[in-house]
């Protein structure tokens, strides 16, 4: 199933921060890959396809084994600003939601208060 998805959408499975040029092609044995591919999927895959598949698997392995890249300060700052903007919007909407909830059932609440509430006359 992994191979099929790679066949139809090879560009979407790239690991983030890892380019295909970093993969060592010498580690891949094309014939073995082709045989394996034929056996497992029953497909008549070309050598290019097998190469592409090999690139993909290697890039995934490399991404798992390589240490995570540190984001740049600009990127961090942009993320922080985005988060702050998001929270500010949340606070603003919280007030609106509170107002809405307070007035949502105002008529029913008043009717219930008149029904069960006690008036006091001094």
């Amino acid at each position, binding site marked *: 199933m992994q191979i099929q998805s790679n066949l139809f959408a090879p560009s979407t499975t790239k690991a983030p921060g890892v380019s295909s040029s970093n993969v060592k092609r010498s580690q891949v044995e094309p014939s073995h890959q082709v045989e394996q591919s034929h056996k497992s999927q029953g497909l008549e895959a070309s050598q290019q396809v097998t190469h592409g598949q090999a690139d993909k698997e290697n890039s995934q392995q490399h991404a798992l084994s390589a240490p995570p890249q540190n984001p740049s300060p600009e990127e961090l700052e942009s993320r922080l600003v985005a988060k702050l903007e998001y929270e500010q919007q949340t606070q603003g909407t919280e007030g609106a939601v509170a107002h809405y909830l307070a007035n949502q059932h105002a008529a029913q609440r008043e009717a219930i208060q*008149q029904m*069960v*509430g*006690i*008036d*006091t*006359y*001094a």
Partner: protein
Amino acid sequence: MPDPLTQGITDKSESKAGAPGRGRFLIELLLAMVITRLPFINVPFKWLESYFHELSHGLATLLTGGIVSHIQLFPNGAGLCFSQGGWPVVIGFSGYFGAALWGYLIFILATWPRGIRMSFAMLGSAVIVTALLWGRDLLTISILACLAVLFLLPLKLSRNRFLGSGLRVMALMIMLNALASPTVLLGLNGKGDAAMLATQTWIPGWIWVMAWLAISAVMIFLCWRRVDSAAKNSVIKR
């Protein structure tokens, strides 16, 4: 056999005769004014006005379709009526108005010599019924018990003349307290019946206070009118 028409006129003149003379009325009014200002002695009479005030709130609640939960009376003369439903404007207005009206009605009863004992008994019974129906806390029940004694104890007296004078003084004290009490509301911002009526009707609270003062003054004046007309009738008869 007496003529029914003559009998009716005779009864009416007798009831008029039960009204005090002008001088006596002024003495009773002066006595009521003094008692309402005497410390400690005036306390039960403050309760009397407070009781009729809350009773009026309660009756207005019932008349406008509401339900009375209970009433509370406090030793300092304050009171509360707890109710559900009804027409708030009528209920709020009825407190001071009702106290003045009750005072006038009691004064009228006090000018009816034949019914003076029955009047005392009825008022005492009304207090007991109120305690049973609307009294919930011990303090309120104690105050109502004192008021019941105040109405029922004079029945031990043998002479109706003292009973009449006593009841008239009580009635005048109720009216005088009803005249003085609303003025307290002028110093209370956002509290009391006047503030409640102001929020309900958008008519300023001081106008309501003035209305209550005017009504209480009119009630006392009506008492004077009754005494005065009785005195004139007795002069014409002579």
